[in-house]
């Protein structure tokens, strides 16, 4: 196929212990390490492998957000993507708006495959891929742990609650990636230099004329309650008594 689009979302690094801003307006991101959403990185790795196997000609990475997202796109380019597109917006983007933006890019780029992480580790929505497939009117294969391309179709093994499910979808399609699909490569230092010369297009979101989905307003953010100190019980009888005492059984 000619072109694969891969979404890269900028999120707080998975190693960072997340903190709420003191005014409760959101998660603290100032001075916090930001990275590519790990599931998106897996999606990019898969796209790069497709290219290396000769199954795709071009891998284009896409991010939606402020200019700071260039950092994640550059990392994607250093990993091996050919081009990057930053859809610039200062607003926070919900899954439906994100899906609409991707749909516009699919049209512009004539993409035949869109690879997205199954969800982003910041808001855990797990919606964008599904919504995009619906808007695009094309098949979706979510939670992929194995992808095999066979010309006009893709055989995808999905991780579902009961085990593994293998389905075959017609291309073009949207595939969202799960943790065990692959292990992303780390960036080689000379490739960081090469990435500087690769094209990174910035498109103001207004240029795509996408209707912004009615957005949900976050009222307040709170850290989870501190875990209470536990007690050690001697036997089952004492356990039952303790649970009854707390009104839990």
């Amino acid at each position, binding site marked *: 196929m000619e072109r694969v689009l891969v979404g890269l979302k900028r999120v707080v690094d998975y190693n960072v212990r997340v903190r709420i801003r003191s005014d409760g307006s959101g998660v603290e991101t100032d*001075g916090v390490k930001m990275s590519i959403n790990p599931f998106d990185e897996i999606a990019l790795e898969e796209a790069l492998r497709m290219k290396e196997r000769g199954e795709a000609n071009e891998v284009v990475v896409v991010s939606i957000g402020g200019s700071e997202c260039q950092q994640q796109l550059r990392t994607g380019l250093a990993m091996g993507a050919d081009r990057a597109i930053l859809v610039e917006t200062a607003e926070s983007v919900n899954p439906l708006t994100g899906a609409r933006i991707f749909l516009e890019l699919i049209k512009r780029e004539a993409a035949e495959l869109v690879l997205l992480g199954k969800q982003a580790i910041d808001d855990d929505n797990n919606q964008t891929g599904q919504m995009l497939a619906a808007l695009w009117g094309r098949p979706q294969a979510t939670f992929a742990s194995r992808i095999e391309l066979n010309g006009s179709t893709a055989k995808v093994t999905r991780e579902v609650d009961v085990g593994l499910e293998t389905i075959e979808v017609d291309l073009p399609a949207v595939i969202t990636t799960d943790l065990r699909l692959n292990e992303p490569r780390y960036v080689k230092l000379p490739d960081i230099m090469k990435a500087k010369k690769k094209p990174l297009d910035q498109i103001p979101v207004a240029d795509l004329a996408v209707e912004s989905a009615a957005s949900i307003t976050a009222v307040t953010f709170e850290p989870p309650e501190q875990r209470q100190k536990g007690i050690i019980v001697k036997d089952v009888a004492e356990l039952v008594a303790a649970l009854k005492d707390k009104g839990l059984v």
Partner: protein
Amino acid sequence: MGVATEGISMTANLAEDKQNETSAEAERDLDLSPAKGLFCGEIIQSCFWPFPEITNEQKEMLGMVLDSVDRFLEDKQENFRQWDEAGEQPEEFIQGLRDLGLFGLIIPEEHGGIGLSNTGYSRVLQQSSRYDSSVSLTIGAHSSIGMKGLLLFGTDAQKERYLPRLASGEMIAAYCLTESGSGSDAASIRTRATRNSNGGWTLNGEKIWITNGGIADFYTVFARTDSDAGKLSAFIVERDSPGVNIGLKEDKLGIRSSSTTTVSFADVEIPAENLLGEEGKGFKIAMAILNSGRTGLSGGAVGGMKTCIALASKQAVERKQFGSSIAEFGLIKKKIAEMTVDCFAAESAVRMVSHYIDSGYTDYSVEAAISKVFASEAMFRAANESLQIAAGNGFMKEFPYERIMRDSRILTIFEGTSEILRLFIALSGMKYAGVLLQELKSATDDIFNNPIKGFGLLSDYAGRRITHLTSLGQDRIIAAVPEILRDDALVFEKYTLELARMTDVLLRRHGKSIIEKQFALQRAADVVIDLFVGLSVLSRVSAMTPDDSEQYQQALSIAHIFSQRAKRRMNRNLRAMLRNEDEAAKSLAEYIFDKQSYPWDVL
């Protein structure tokens, strides 16, 4: 990093270094040495403020480099432990370092590297040192010193020929200065290169304790040219030249998996084009390489400290004794706070020095030495204290503390021992202070060249210096620091003047024998170390955006703690100049040298 060190010979060679004299005239900022300025009672504000920053683009690029280093090293903790025990890094790991591009860190892009600045390079070594010192050494001995001579002094043809292979790691580099009879005293080198009939050189001799000795293919070798008394010259020697022999791996206390070997040369023919820099300039080349490489080692020390802080604070919070976490105890808090202040201070000073190098300062050897002494000693304190916090666990091989402590022990020994560097710092500063007044330049030079002749003019010199000092007003840097730290800034203004006065006192009191007054020189060095590091800390917190965040408030607190403790240390050092037991201590040592044992017993 070769265990080669600058020597006493270096201090003796100070007078030879005519370049410093012209720089004393300070025609432009880049010729200034901020640390030497301190010996003259002057805080050169433009050298300390504003705290250096890198561009956003550089930050982003460096962030990607650090991410890759993390990814490559973070899952290898167990391997590092095993390789320490085995005393070797496996070839596939070194291949991994090559594949990642870690041998091309400072090599320009056009030669296949990534062309990091000194600041960026030092930061990368900090990152790798968070995981394992031996890894940093393999990378650092290559870049900081092994091939640095080629980068600084190589001809275009030499660079063309070697840099691409050095960048890819196809060739790994090593720096060969130290010999069995020539450790700190680099001037006593016996390896010799004689001109041969092919127009090239024939090299004979043996170098010891060569980091990367066993895995390198490219050696920067220092040898006397032509005669035993000839001057040093630097050469590029390839491993596969006939006559190059690599000795057995040394069995070491720490940094065990890094390769340390002897490298010997038996009638090795070196083509004329492999002379590095000018013939006879080898000593200067050797020192220039070490000076510019110091930020790698010091950056590594900072990385090690960050690991110690992370390990020890986690251990303290989790470990329960007497019914509460040991993190509740004052003596544990004290250790963690001291490690943190040390780390922040070392990080600030190293950053300042790497900025001088990147900005093209020509005279930064004293500053580089200060940052090396401070960072390496602070790292060993951190290793020792984090082990102490972990206590019994810390002593066990199952935990990383003992390895970190063994690994960090070398830091105050190689690339200049703490002792030699302190003498170098103090004597360089004093020489500079002496030449500040033009008309007395020759007289003060003579103190170093010909002390007896030179000393006659000193009383006049001293009188003028005091006038010079008192003419300098105070209140010069306090305007540049946050209001809450103004009292702390005053400490550095006051003690900078005190250092200059002390310099005068030392010269007046000891005159011709100043070079031998090592107790006094050490005190002067310790004062200037506190001043330079403290000013770097103040500058750094001055550049932070003031807000209510705890991170900012605690940074202010670090600056305050460092300043007040430095004040007490400096005060102690100054008082000890006037009243001390130096002569008694020397006499005692001489008595023991005579016995070579301890002669008392309580029985």
